[in-house]
Protein backbone atom coordinates (compact mmCIF):
# COMPACT_ATOMS: atom_id res chain seq x y z
CA UNK A 1 0.00 0.00 0.00
CA UNK A 2 1.79 3.01 -1.19
CA UNK A 3 1.37 6.43 0.28
CA UNK A 4 -0.20 9.12 -1.83
CA UNK A 5 2.22 11.63 -3.23
CA UNK A 6 1.98 15.14 -1.84
CA UNK A 7 0.92 16.83 -5.07
CA UNK A 8 -0.35 14.05 -7.22
CA UNK A 9 -0.42 14.73 -10.92
CA UNK A 10 -3.66 13.81 -12.68
CA UNK A 11 -3.04 11.37 -15.53
CA UNK A 12 -6.59 10.92 -16.74
CA UNK A 13 -9.49 13.19 -16.02
CA UNK A 14 -13.03 12.06 -16.80
CA UNK A 15 -15.46 14.98 -16.95
CA UNK A 16 -19.23 14.58 -17.11
CA UNK A 17 -19.33 11.52 -19.32
CA UNK A 18 -22.69 10.32 -20.60
CA UNK A 19 -22.93 7.22 -22.82
CA UNK A 20 -26.12 6.01 -24.44
CA UNK A 21 -27.01 2.94 -26.46
CA UNK A 22 -30.18 3.81 -28.32
CA UNK A 23 -32.43 5.02 -25.51
CA UNK A 24 -30.54 3.34 -22.68
CA UNK A 25 -28.12 5.40 -20.63
CA UNK A 26 -25.18 3.20 -19.74
CA UNK A 27 -23.25 6.00 -18.05
CA UNK A 28 -24.76 9.21 -16.75
CA UNK A 29 -22.72 12.29 -16.02
CA UNK A 30 -19.70 10.52 -14.57
CA UNK A 31 -16.63 12.44 -13.44
CA UNK A 32 -13.52 11.20 -11.70
CA UNK A 33 -9.79 11.32 -12.15
CA UNK A 34 -6.90 8.90 -12.10
CA UNK A 35 -3.65 10.16 -10.65
CA UNK A 36 -0.28 9.20 -11.85
CA UNK A 37 1.13 6.16 -10.13
CA UNK A 38 -1.97 5.10 -8.24
CA UNK A 39 -4.09 1.98 -8.33
CA UNK A 40 -7.61 3.09 -8.96
CA UNK A 41 -10.44 0.59 -8.60
CA UNK A 42 -13.83 0.86 -10.24
CA UNK A 43 -16.45 -1.19 -8.46
CA UNK A 44 -20.15 -1.65 -8.56
CA UNK A 45 -22.80 -4.34 -8.97
CA UNK A 46 -23.41 -6.14 -12.26
CA UNK A 47 -24.66 -3.80 -14.96
CA UNK A 48 -23.35 -0.76 -13.18
CA UNK A 49 -21.45 0.36 -16.26
CA UNK A 50 -17.91 -0.55 -15.19
CA UNK A 51 -16.86 -2.23 -18.42
CA UNK A 52 -18.51 0.54 -20.41
CA UNK A 53 -16.37 2.99 -18.48
CA UNK A 54 -13.19 1.16 -19.48
CA UNK A 55 -14.43 1.00 -23.04
CA UNK A 56 -14.89 4.74 -23.00
CA UNK A 57 -11.41 5.27 -21.59
CA UNK A 58 -9.73 3.24 -24.29
CA UNK A 59 -11.90 4.64 -27.04
CA UNK A 60 -13.93 1.57 -27.95
CA UNK A 61 -17.11 3.49 -27.15
CA UNK A 62 -17.51 7.17 -27.78
CA UNK A 63 -19.58 9.01 -25.19
CA UNK A 64 -22.29 11.37 -26.38
CA UNK A 65 -21.44 13.98 -23.79
CA UNK A 66 -18.48 14.88 -21.65
CA UNK A 67 -14.75 15.31 -21.97
CA UNK A 68 -11.70 13.16 -21.39
CA UNK A 69 -8.40 14.76 -20.51
CA UNK A 70 -5.30 12.65 -20.80
CA UNK A 71 -1.92 13.91 -19.61
CA UNK A 72 -3.27 17.41 -19.35
CA UNK A 73 -4.71 17.55 -22.85
CA UNK A 74 -8.24 17.17 -24.02
CA UNK A 75 -8.60 14.01 -26.06
CA UNK A 76 -10.47 14.09 -29.36
CA UNK A 77 -12.55 11.23 -30.74
CA UNK A 78 -9.64 8.87 -31.30
CA UNK A 79 -9.76 5.27 -32.43
CA UNK A 80 -8.80 2.57 -29.90
CA UNK A 81 -5.60 1.86 -31.79
CA UNK A 82 -4.57 5.51 -31.56
CA UNK A 83 -5.28 5.59 -27.84
CA UNK A 84 -3.23 2.44 -27.40
CA UNK A 85 -0.34 4.23 -29.05
CA UNK A 86 -0.72 7.10 -26.54
CA UNK A 87 0.13 4.62 -23.80
CA UNK A 88 -3.11 2.98 -22.67
CA UNK A 89 -3.20 -0.81 -22.49
CA UNK A 90 -5.82 -3.14 -21.12
CA UNK A 91 -6.91 -6.67 -20.39
CA UNK A 92 -10.37 -8.05 -20.91
CA UNK A 93 -13.04 -9.58 -18.78
CA UNK A 94 -13.42 -12.48 -21.20
CA UNK A 95 -9.89 -13.23 -22.28
CA UNK A 96 -9.14 -11.76 -25.68
CA UNK A 97 -5.87 -13.43 -26.61
CA UNK A 98 -4.88 -14.37 -30.14
CA UNK A 99 -5.61 -18.04 -29.84
CA UNK A 100 -3.71 -19.16 -32.92
CA UNK A 101 -0.41 -17.69 -31.72
CA UNK A 102 2.09 -18.78 -29.08
CA UNK A 103 2.52 -17.13 -25.71
CA UNK A 104 5.68 -15.48 -26.95
CA UNK A 105 3.99 -14.10 -30.08
CA UNK A 106 1.01 -12.89 -28.07
CA UNK A 107 3.21 -10.91 -25.75
CA UNK A 108 5.27 -9.68 -28.69
CA UNK A 109 2.08 -8.18 -30.15
CA UNK A 110 2.12 -5.88 -27.16
CA UNK A 111 5.27 -4.35 -28.62
CA UNK A 112 3.63 -3.58 -31.94
CA UNK A 113 2.98 0.03 -31.04
CA UNK A 114 6.72 0.43 -30.55
CA UNK A 115 7.80 -0.98 -33.91
CA UNK A 116 9.88 1.48 -35.89
CA UNK A 117 11.05 -0.80 -38.73
CA UNK A 118 9.36 0.01 -42.02
CA UNK A 119 7.80 -2.60 -44.20
CA UNK A 120 10.86 -2.65 -46.42
CA UNK A 121 13.08 -3.23 -43.37
CA UNK A 122 10.91 -6.14 -42.40
CA UNK A 123 11.00 -7.69 -45.85
CA UNK A 124 14.78 -7.51 -45.96
CA UNK A 125 14.96 -8.40 -42.28
CA UNK A 126 18.68 -7.92 -41.89
CA UNK A 127 19.42 -4.62 -40.22
CA UNK A 128 16.90 -2.55 -38.39
CA UNK A 129 14.05 -5.08 -38.37
CA UNK A 130 16.21 -7.84 -36.96
CA UNK A 131 17.88 -5.63 -34.38
CA UNK A 132 14.56 -4.27 -33.24
CA UNK A 133 13.05 -7.73 -33.08
CA UNK A 134 15.74 -8.87 -30.67
CA UNK A 135 15.38 -5.74 -28.56
CA UNK A 136 11.68 -6.42 -28.25
CA UNK A 137 12.38 -10.03 -27.59
CA UNK A 138 14.69 -9.13 -24.74
CA UNK A 139 12.06 -6.88 -23.20
CA UNK A 140 9.41 -9.57 -23.62
CA UNK A 141 11.67 -12.15 -21.99
CA UNK A 142 11.88 -9.86 -18.95
CA UNK A 143 8.10 -9.83 -18.77
CA UNK A 144 7.98 -13.59 -19.22
CA UNK A 145 10.39 -13.96 -16.32
CA UNK A 146 8.47 -11.46 -14.24
CA UNK A 147 5.21 -13.37 -14.78
CA UNK A 148 6.92 -16.73 -14.34
CA UNK A 149 5.63 -18.23 -17.59
CA UNK A 150 8.92 -19.34 -19.12
CA UNK A 151 7.78 -22.90 -19.61
CA UNK A 152 4.85 -22.02 -21.87
CA UNK A 153 6.76 -19.62 -24.07
CA UNK A 154 6.18 -21.59 -27.27
CA UNK A 155 2.77 -23.05 -26.49
CA UNK A 156 -0.21 -21.83 -28.52
CA UNK A 157 -2.32 -19.91 -26.03
CA UNK A 158 -5.49 -21.69 -27.06
CA UNK A 159 -4.18 -24.76 -25.22
CA UNK A 160 -3.40 -23.00 -21.92
CA UNK A 161 -5.55 -23.18 -18.78
CA UNK A 162 -7.63 -20.16 -17.85
CA UNK A 163 -5.38 -18.80 -15.12
CA UNK A 164 -2.31 -18.85 -17.32
CA UNK A 165 -4.20 -17.20 -20.16
CA UNK A 166 -5.06 -14.33 -17.82
CA UNK A 167 -1.41 -14.01 -17.01
CA UNK A 168 -0.38 -14.01 -20.67
CA UNK A 169 -2.93 -11.33 -21.31
CA UNK A 170 -1.43 -9.22 -18.54
CA UNK A 171 1.94 -9.83 -20.12
CA UNK A 172 0.71 -8.60 -23.48
CA UNK A 173 -0.59 -5.39 -21.89
CA UNK A 174 2.67 -4.89 -19.97
CA UNK A 175 4.77 -5.41 -23.07
CA UNK A 176 3.37 -2.16 -24.41
CA UNK A 177 4.95 -0.40 -21.39
CA UNK A 178 1.76 1.59 -20.88
CA UNK A 179 1.40 4.66 -18.74
CA UNK A 180 -2.15 3.65 -17.92
CA UNK A 181 -3.07 0.01 -17.54
CA UNK A 182 -6.74 -0.95 -17.53
CA UNK A 183 -7.57 -4.32 -15.99
CA UNK A 184 -11.07 -5.65 -16.43
CA UNK A 185 -11.67 -8.19 -13.66
CA UNK A 186 -8.16 -9.62 -13.69
CA UNK A 187 -8.99 -12.10 -10.97
CA UNK A 188 -12.41 -13.28 -12.07
CA UNK A 189 -12.86 -17.02 -12.02
CA UNK A 190 -9.59 -17.73 -10.22
CA UNK A 191 -8.98 -19.79 -7.13
CA UNK A 192 -7.50 -18.23 -4.01
CA UNK A 193 -3.93 -19.14 -4.85
CA UNK A 194 -4.15 -17.73 -8.38
CA UNK A 195 -5.74 -14.57 -7.01
CA UNK A 196 -2.89 -14.04 -4.63
CA UNK A 197 -0.42 -14.46 -7.46
CA UNK A 198 -2.30 -11.99 -9.60
CA UNK A 199 -2.54 -9.44 -6.75
CA UNK A 200 1.17 -9.69 -6.33
CA UNK A 201 1.75 -9.09 -10.04
CA UNK A 202 -0.55 -6.07 -10.08
CA UNK A 203 1.17 -4.49 -7.10
CA UNK A 204 4.61 -5.31 -8.49
CA UNK A 205 3.71 -3.71 -11.80
CA UNK A 206 2.55 -0.62 -9.98
CA UNK A 207 5.59 -0.40 -7.80
CA UNK A 208 8.41 -1.63 -10.00
CA UNK A 209 7.36 -0.08 -13.29
CA UNK A 210 5.44 2.85 -11.82
CA UNK A 211 2.48 2.05 -14.06
CA UNK A 212 -0.80 3.69 -13.24
CA UNK A 213 -3.53 1.08 -12.96
CA UNK A 214 -7.29 1.27 -13.21
CA UNK A 215 -9.01 -1.99 -12.43
CA UNK A 216 -12.46 -3.43 -12.16
CA UNK A 217 -12.86 -6.10 -9.56
CA UNK A 218 -15.67 -7.86 -7.77
CA UNK A 219 -13.74 -9.28 -4.88
CA UNK A 220 -14.03 -6.49 -2.32
CA UNK A 221 -11.26 -7.87 -0.21
CA UNK A 222 -8.88 -7.57 -3.11
CA UNK A 223 -10.05 -4.08 -3.99
CA UNK A 224 -9.66 -2.81 -0.48
CA UNK A 225 -6.21 -4.37 -0.20
CA UNK A 226 -4.55 -3.12 -3.33
CA UNK A 227 -6.21 0.08 -4.43
CA UNK A 228 -5.38 3.63 -3.43
CA UNK A 229 -8.73 5.07 -4.37
CA UNK A 230 -12.06 3.59 -5.40
CA UNK A 231 -14.87 4.88 -7.54
CA UNK A 232 -18.25 3.24 -7.17
CA UNK A 233 -20.80 3.04 -9.97
CA UNK A 234 -24.42 1.93 -9.80
CA UNK A 235 -26.86 1.90 -12.68
CA UNK A 236 -24.57 4.15 -14.67
CA UNK A 237 -24.26 6.76 -11.95
CA UNK A 238 -21.33 7.51 -9.70
CA UNK A 239 -22.34 6.98 -6.09
CA UNK A 240 -19.02 7.11 -4.35
CA UNK A 241 -15.39 8.12 -4.76
CA UNK A 242 -12.51 8.11 -2.34
CA UNK A 243 -10.08 5.95 -0.40
CA UNK A 244 -11.19 2.42 0.41
CA UNK A 245 -12.03 3.48 3.92
CA UNK A 246 -14.09 6.44 2.81
CA UNK A 247 -16.01 4.31 0.34
CA UNK A 248 -16.55 1.59 2.89
CA UNK A 249 -18.26 4.08 5.16
CA UNK A 250 -20.34 5.81 2.48
CA UNK A 251 -23.98 4.94 3.27
CA UNK A 252 -25.13 5.08 -0.35
CA UNK A 253 -22.45 2.62 -1.33
CA UNK A 254 -23.35 0.35 1.51
CA UNK A 255 -26.96 0.44 0.41
CA UNK A 256 -26.26 -0.26 -3.21
CA UNK A 257 -23.45 -2.66 -2.97
CA UNK A 258 -21.52 -3.36 0.12
CA UNK A 259 -24.58 -4.03 2.12
CA UNK A 260 -25.04 -7.23 0.22
CA UNK A 261 -21.43 -8.09 -0.18
CA UNK A 262 -20.62 -8.94 3.45
CA UNK A 263 -17.12 -7.79 3.83
Amino acid at each position, binding site marked *: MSEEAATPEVLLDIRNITLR*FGGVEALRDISFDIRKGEVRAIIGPNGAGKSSML*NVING*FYHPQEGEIWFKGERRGPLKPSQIARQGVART*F*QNIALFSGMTTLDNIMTGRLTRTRATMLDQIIWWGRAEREEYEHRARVEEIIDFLEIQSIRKTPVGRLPYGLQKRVELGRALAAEPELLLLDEPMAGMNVEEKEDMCRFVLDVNEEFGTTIALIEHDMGVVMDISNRVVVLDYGRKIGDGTPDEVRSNPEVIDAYLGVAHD
Partner: protein
Amino acid sequence: MSDQLLFSIEAAINGLMTGILYALVALGFVLIFKASEIFNYAQGVMALFAALTLVGLQKGQVPFAELINAIFGTNIHEFGWEMPTALALLLTIGVMVLFAILVERIVLRHLVNQAPIILFMATIGLAFFMEGFGDLMWGSDIKALDIGLPKGLSETVDQTTFEWFGYGFFIDRLDVAAAIVAAVLVTALVLFSQYTRIGRALRAVADDHQAALSVGISLRLIWVIVWAVAGFVALVAGAMWGAKSGVQFSLSLIALKALPVLMLGGFTSIPGAIVGGLIIGAGEKLFELWVGPLIGGATENWFAYMLALVFLVFRPQGLFGEKIIERV
Protein backbone atom coordinates in the same frame (compact mmCIF):
# COMPACT_ATOMS: atom_id res chain seq x y z
CA MET B 1 -47.04 5.68 -71.15
CA SER B 2 -43.73 6.18 -72.82
CA ASP B 3 -42.02 3.31 -74.59
CA GLN B 4 -39.00 3.48 -72.35
CA LEU B 5 -41.11 3.07 -69.26
CA LEU B 6 -42.94 0.13 -70.80
CA PHE B 7 -39.69 -1.56 -71.72
CA SER B 8 -38.41 -1.03 -68.22
CA ILE B 9 -41.51 -2.54 -66.72
CA GLU B 10 -41.25 -5.49 -69.05
CA ALA B 11 -37.58 -5.99 -68.23
CA ALA B 12 -38.29 -5.66 -64.52
CA ILE B 13 -41.08 -8.23 -64.62
CA ASN B 14 -38.92 -10.67 -66.53
CA GLY B 15 -36.12 -9.97 -64.09
CA LEU B 16 -38.37 -10.75 -61.17
CA MET B 17 -39.26 -14.06 -62.80
CA THR B 18 -35.61 -14.91 -63.31
CA GLY B 19 -34.96 -13.76 -59.76
CA ILE B 20 -37.34 -16.40 -58.48
CA LEU B 21 -35.25 -19.02 -60.23
CA TYR B 22 -32.13 -17.58 -58.58
CA ALA B 23 -33.92 -17.62 -55.26
CA LEU B 24 -34.75 -21.27 -55.78
CA VAL B 25 -31.06 -22.12 -55.89
CA ALA B 26 -30.27 -19.76 -53.02
CA LEU B 27 -32.91 -21.49 -50.92
CA GLY B 28 -30.88 -24.68 -50.91
CA PHE B 29 -27.89 -22.80 -49.55
CA VAL B 30 -29.93 -21.12 -46.86
CA LEU B 31 -31.48 -24.35 -45.59
CA ILE B 32 -28.13 -25.98 -45.02
CA PHE B 33 -26.41 -22.88 -43.66
CA LYS B 34 -29.19 -22.25 -41.21
CA ALA B 35 -29.11 -25.71 -39.73
CA SER B 36 -25.39 -26.41 -39.80
CA GLU B 37 -23.53 -23.21 -40.69
CA ILE B 38 -22.08 -25.00 -43.66
CA PHE B 39 -21.70 -22.93 -46.79
CA ASN B 40 -22.57 -25.68 -49.24
CA TYR B 41 -20.82 -24.88 -52.47
CA ALA B 42 -22.00 -28.18 -53.92
CA GLN B 43 -25.58 -26.91 -54.14
CA GLY B 44 -25.21 -26.13 -57.85
CA VAL B 45 -23.74 -29.51 -58.64
CA MET B 46 -26.50 -31.10 -56.59
CA ALA B 47 -29.00 -29.40 -58.90
CA LEU B 48 -27.17 -30.79 -61.91
CA PHE B 49 -26.92 -34.23 -60.39
CA ALA B 50 -30.59 -34.29 -59.47
CA ALA B 51 -31.64 -33.17 -62.94
CA LEU B 52 -29.32 -35.71 -64.57
CA THR B 53 -30.78 -38.46 -62.43
CA LEU B 54 -34.30 -37.37 -63.26
CA VAL B 55 -33.68 -37.42 -67.01
CA GLY B 56 -31.63 -40.58 -66.82
CA LEU B 57 -34.40 -42.43 -65.02
CA GLN B 58 -37.04 -41.01 -67.31
CA LYS B 59 -35.20 -42.10 -70.43
CA GLY B 60 -34.19 -45.46 -69.01
CA GLN B 61 -30.47 -44.85 -69.22
CA VAL B 62 -28.18 -47.44 -67.67
CA PRO B 63 -26.14 -45.75 -64.96
CA PHE B 64 -22.35 -46.00 -65.38
CA ALA B 65 -22.91 -47.46 -68.85
CA GLU B 66 -19.60 -46.17 -70.15
CA LEU B 67 -17.65 -47.52 -67.23
CA ILE B 68 -19.39 -50.90 -67.37
CA ASN B 69 -18.78 -51.14 -71.10
CA ALA B 70 -15.15 -50.20 -70.70
CA ILE B 71 -14.53 -52.75 -68.00
CA PHE B 72 -16.62 -55.67 -69.21
CA GLY B 73 -16.47 -54.99 -72.92
CA THR B 74 -20.25 -54.94 -73.08
CA ASN B 75 -22.28 -52.53 -75.15
CA ILE B 76 -25.25 -51.55 -73.04
CA HIS B 77 -26.70 -48.06 -72.90
CA GLU B 78 -30.40 -48.15 -72.22
CA PHE B 79 -32.92 -50.29 -70.47
CA GLY B 80 -35.35 -49.46 -73.20
CA TRP B 81 -38.20 -48.10 -71.09
CA GLU B 82 -39.76 -44.72 -70.65
CA MET B 83 -40.51 -44.08 -67.02
CA PRO B 84 -43.51 -41.90 -66.15
CA THR B 85 -42.35 -38.49 -64.92
CA ALA B 86 -44.01 -38.84 -61.53
CA LEU B 87 -42.27 -42.12 -60.79
CA ALA B 88 -38.95 -40.75 -62.00
CA LEU B 89 -39.40 -37.74 -59.72
CA LEU B 90 -40.11 -39.97 -56.74
CA LEU B 91 -37.09 -42.14 -57.43
CA THR B 92 -34.90 -39.08 -57.84
CA ILE B 93 -36.04 -37.81 -54.46
CA GLY B 94 -35.08 -41.21 -53.10
CA VAL B 95 -31.63 -40.85 -54.64
CA MET B 96 -31.21 -37.39 -53.11
CA VAL B 97 -32.20 -38.70 -49.66
CA LEU B 98 -29.68 -41.47 -50.04
CA PHE B 99 -27.14 -38.87 -51.04
CA ALA B 100 -27.90 -36.85 -47.91
CA ILE B 101 -27.41 -39.90 -45.72
CA LEU B 102 -24.09 -40.70 -47.38
CA VAL B 103 -22.86 -37.13 -47.06
CA GLU B 104 -23.61 -37.15 -43.35
CA ARG B 105 -22.05 -40.60 -42.86
CA ILE B 106 -18.94 -40.11 -44.90
CA VAL B 107 -18.19 -36.42 -44.63
CA LEU B 108 -20.04 -34.28 -42.11
CA ARG B 109 -19.84 -36.69 -39.20
CA HIS B 110 -16.07 -36.44 -39.29
CA LEU B 111 -15.94 -32.70 -39.58
CA VAL B 112 -18.03 -31.67 -36.59
CA ASN B 113 -16.68 -28.56 -34.85
CA GLN B 114 -14.30 -27.66 -37.63
CA ALA B 115 -13.83 -24.07 -38.75
CA PRO B 116 -16.43 -22.89 -41.28
CA ILE B 117 -13.84 -22.52 -44.01
CA ILE B 118 -12.83 -26.16 -43.65
CA LEU B 119 -16.44 -27.23 -44.05
CA PHE B 120 -16.77 -24.91 -47.02
CA MET B 121 -13.74 -26.52 -48.63
CA ALA B 122 -15.14 -29.96 -47.94
CA THR B 123 -18.26 -29.04 -49.89
CA ILE B 124 -16.12 -27.88 -52.79
CA GLY B 125 -14.36 -31.23 -52.69
CA LEU B 126 -17.80 -32.79 -52.67
CA ALA B 127 -18.74 -30.67 -55.70
CA PHE B 128 -15.70 -31.95 -57.62
CA PHE B 129 -16.54 -35.47 -56.65
CA MET B 130 -20.15 -35.21 -57.75
CA GLU B 131 -19.24 -33.49 -60.99
CA GLY B 132 -17.12 -36.46 -62.00
CA PHE B 133 -19.48 -38.96 -60.46
CA GLY B 134 -22.56 -37.53 -62.19
CA ASP B 135 -20.83 -37.59 -65.55
CA LEU B 136 -19.61 -41.13 -65.02
CA MET B 137 -23.08 -42.21 -64.01
CA TRP B 138 -25.12 -40.52 -66.71
CA GLY B 139 -22.67 -39.35 -69.40
CA SER B 140 -21.77 -35.82 -70.43
CA ASP B 141 -24.22 -35.49 -73.30
CA ILE B 142 -26.80 -32.77 -73.29
CA LYS B 143 -30.22 -34.12 -72.43
CA ALA B 144 -33.55 -32.57 -73.24
CA LEU B 145 -35.79 -32.53 -70.19
CA ASP B 146 -39.54 -32.53 -70.57
CA ILE B 147 -41.62 -32.74 -67.44
CA GLY B 148 -44.72 -31.34 -69.06
CA LEU B 149 -44.29 -27.69 -68.13
CA PRO B 150 -45.58 -25.04 -70.55
CA LYS B 151 -43.01 -23.03 -72.46
CA GLY B 152 -42.80 -19.93 -74.55
CA LEU B 153 -44.62 -16.63 -74.90
CA SER B 154 -47.78 -16.23 -72.89
CA GLU B 155 -50.48 -15.13 -75.32
CA THR B 156 -52.78 -13.89 -72.62
CA VAL B 157 -50.29 -11.50 -71.15
CA ASP B 158 -49.17 -10.39 -74.57
CA GLN B 159 -52.69 -9.56 -75.71
CA THR B 160 -53.92 -8.02 -72.48
CA THR B 161 -50.97 -5.74 -72.18
CA PHE B 162 -51.24 -4.89 -75.84
CA GLU B 163 -54.80 -3.79 -75.32
CA TRP B 164 -53.85 -1.74 -72.30
CA PHE B 165 -50.65 -0.07 -73.43
CA GLY B 166 -50.35 -0.75 -77.12
CA TYR B 167 -47.28 -2.87 -76.38
CA GLY B 168 -47.48 -6.56 -75.65
CA PHE B 169 -45.37 -7.72 -72.74
CA PHE B 170 -43.33 -10.85 -73.06
CA ILE B 171 -43.69 -13.36 -70.29
CA ASP B 172 -42.31 -16.87 -70.58
CA ARG B 173 -44.86 -19.40 -69.45
CA LEU B 174 -42.07 -21.55 -68.08
CA ASP B 175 -41.10 -18.66 -65.82
CA VAL B 176 -44.65 -18.38 -64.58
CA ALA B 177 -44.75 -22.09 -63.91
CA ALA B 178 -41.42 -21.84 -62.10
CA ALA B 179 -42.70 -18.96 -60.00
CA ILE B 180 -45.73 -20.99 -58.99
CA VAL B 181 -43.64 -24.03 -58.17
CA ALA B 182 -41.27 -21.85 -56.15
CA ALA B 183 -44.18 -20.31 -54.24
CA VAL B 184 -45.60 -23.74 -53.45
CA LEU B 185 -42.19 -24.97 -52.40
CA VAL B 186 -41.58 -22.04 -50.06
CA THR B 187 -45.02 -22.34 -48.53
CA ALA B 188 -44.44 -26.03 -48.01
CA LEU B 189 -41.10 -25.34 -46.39
CA VAL B 190 -42.57 -22.74 -44.08
CA LEU B 191 -45.43 -25.02 -43.10
CA PHE B 192 -42.97 -27.85 -42.60
CA SER B 193 -40.78 -25.83 -40.31
CA GLN B 194 -43.68 -24.31 -38.39
CA TYR B 195 -46.00 -27.23 -37.88
CA THR B 196 -44.03 -30.45 -37.79
CA ARG B 197 -41.94 -31.80 -35.00
CA ILE B 198 -38.90 -32.11 -37.23
CA GLY B 199 -39.42 -28.62 -38.51
CA ARG B 200 -39.46 -27.21 -35.01
CA ALA B 201 -36.35 -29.18 -34.23
CA LEU B 202 -34.71 -27.64 -37.28
CA ARG B 203 -35.48 -24.16 -36.06
CA ALA B 204 -34.23 -25.02 -32.60
CA VAL B 205 -30.93 -26.15 -34.07
CA ALA B 206 -30.70 -23.01 -36.13
CA ASP B 207 -31.15 -20.91 -33.01
CA ASP B 208 -28.81 -22.71 -30.72
CA HIS B 209 -26.94 -25.95 -31.28
CA GLN B 210 -26.31 -26.59 -27.61
CA ALA B 211 -29.87 -25.97 -26.57
CA ALA B 212 -31.14 -28.22 -29.32
CA LEU B 213 -28.81 -30.99 -28.24
CA SER B 214 -29.85 -30.66 -24.62
CA VAL B 215 -33.50 -31.30 -25.42
CA GLY B 216 -32.58 -34.49 -27.15
CA ILE B 217 -32.59 -33.69 -30.84
CA SER B 218 -30.08 -35.72 -32.80
CA LEU B 219 -27.92 -33.34 -34.72
CA ARG B 220 -27.04 -36.03 -37.21
CA LEU B 221 -30.64 -36.72 -38.06
CA ILE B 222 -31.19 -33.01 -38.50
CA TRP B 223 -28.25 -32.81 -40.89
CA VAL B 224 -29.53 -35.71 -42.94
CA ILE B 225 -32.92 -34.05 -43.14
CA VAL B 226 -31.68 -30.62 -44.19
CA TRP B 227 -29.39 -32.10 -46.79
CA ALA B 228 -32.25 -34.21 -48.10
CA VAL B 229 -34.53 -31.18 -48.23
CA ALA B 230 -31.79 -29.15 -49.90
CA GLY B 231 -31.41 -32.02 -52.35
CA PHE B 232 -35.12 -31.79 -53.09
CA VAL B 233 -34.84 -28.03 -53.60
CA ALA B 234 -31.89 -28.70 -55.90
CA LEU B 235 -34.01 -31.13 -57.87
CA VAL B 236 -36.70 -28.52 -58.38
CA ALA B 237 -34.16 -25.87 -59.37
CA GLY B 238 -32.35 -28.28 -61.66
CA ALA B 239 -35.58 -29.34 -63.34
CA MET B 240 -36.63 -25.73 -63.93
CA TRP B 241 -33.29 -24.65 -65.40
CA GLY B 242 -32.93 -27.96 -67.22
CA ALA B 243 -36.27 -27.45 -68.94
CA LYS B 244 -34.93 -24.17 -70.29
CA SER B 245 -31.54 -25.18 -71.62
CA GLY B 246 -31.38 -28.94 -71.55
CA VAL B 247 -29.66 -30.79 -68.75
CA GLN B 248 -25.91 -30.36 -69.07
CA PHE B 249 -22.81 -29.50 -67.12
CA SER B 250 -23.41 -25.75 -67.25
CA LEU B 251 -26.35 -26.22 -64.91
CA SER B 252 -23.94 -26.49 -62.02
CA LEU B 253 -22.79 -22.93 -62.68
CA ILE B 254 -26.13 -21.47 -61.63
CA ALA B 255 -24.78 -21.68 -58.10
CA LEU B 256 -22.74 -18.61 -58.97
CA LYS B 257 -25.94 -16.74 -59.68
CA ALA B 258 -27.24 -17.61 -56.25
CA LEU B 259 -24.29 -16.29 -54.26
CA PRO B 260 -25.02 -12.56 -54.60
CA VAL B 261 -28.60 -13.35 -53.69
CA LEU B 262 -27.29 -14.88 -50.49
CA MET B 263 -25.13 -11.89 -49.73
CA LEU B 264 -28.03 -9.59 -50.16
CA GLY B 265 -30.61 -11.66 -48.34
CA GLY B 266 -28.38 -13.09 -45.66
CA PHE B 267 -27.21 -16.68 -45.35
CA THR B 268 -29.84 -17.62 -42.83
CA SER B 269 -33.04 -16.05 -44.03
CA ILE B 270 -35.55 -17.77 -46.29
CA PRO B 271 -37.50 -14.56 -46.97
CA GLY B 272 -34.11 -12.91 -47.51
CA ALA B 273 -33.27 -15.41 -50.25
CA ILE B 274 -36.53 -14.71 -52.02
CA VAL B 275 -36.46 -10.93 -51.74
CA GLY B 276 -32.75 -10.95 -52.58
CA GLY B 277 -33.44 -13.05 -55.66
CA LEU B 278 -36.16 -10.67 -56.81
CA ILE B 279 -34.00 -7.59 -56.30
CA ILE B 280 -31.05 -9.09 -58.13
CA GLY B 281 -33.17 -10.48 -60.95
CA ALA B 282 -34.90 -7.17 -61.63
CA GLY B 283 -31.79 -5.11 -60.90
CA GLU B 284 -29.53 -6.89 -63.35
CA LYS B 285 -32.08 -6.76 -66.14
CA LEU B 286 -32.69 -3.05 -65.67
CA PHE B 287 -28.97 -2.33 -65.39
CA GLU B 288 -28.28 -4.27 -68.58
CA LEU B 289 -31.15 -2.44 -70.29
CA TRP B 290 -30.10 1.07 -69.27
CA VAL B 291 -26.43 1.04 -68.43
CA GLY B 292 -25.33 -2.02 -70.41
CA PRO B 293 -25.37 -0.36 -73.84
CA LEU B 294 -23.24 2.52 -72.54
CA ILE B 295 -20.44 0.31 -71.25
CA GLY B 296 -20.55 -2.55 -73.69
CA GLY B 297 -23.08 -4.96 -72.27
CA ALA B 298 -22.73 -8.43 -70.74
CA THR B 299 -22.82 -6.85 -67.31
CA GLU B 300 -24.99 -9.47 -65.69
CA ASN B 301 -22.19 -11.64 -64.37
CA TRP B 302 -20.71 -8.96 -62.17
CA PHE B 303 -23.55 -6.54 -61.60
CA ALA B 304 -25.27 -8.75 -59.07
CA TYR B 305 -22.07 -9.05 -57.05
CA MET B 306 -21.36 -5.33 -57.17
CA LEU B 307 -24.91 -4.54 -56.10
CA ALA B 308 -24.63 -6.92 -53.19
CA LEU B 309 -21.20 -5.58 -52.31
CA VAL B 310 -22.28 -1.95 -52.23
CA PHE B 311 -25.34 -2.88 -50.27
CA LEU B 312 -23.33 -4.79 -47.69
CA VAL B 313 -20.87 -1.98 -47.20
CA PHE B 314 -23.76 0.12 -45.97
CA ARG B 315 -25.60 -2.64 -44.24
CA PRO B 316 -23.19 -5.42 -43.23
CA GLN B 317 -25.86 -7.54 -41.61
CA GLY B 318 -27.76 -8.03 -44.87
CA LEU B 319 -31.37 -7.41 -45.71
CA PHE B 320 -33.03 -9.21 -42.82
CA GLY B 321 -30.18 -9.63 -40.39
CA GLU B 322 -30.16 -7.90 -37.02
CA LYS B 323 -27.75 -5.09 -36.39
CA ILE B 324 -24.48 -6.40 -35.10
CA ILE B 325 -23.29 -4.75 -31.87
CA GLU B 326 -19.66 -5.45 -31.18
CA ARG B 327 -18.65 -6.21 -27.62
CA VAL B 328 -15.46 -6.76 -25.81
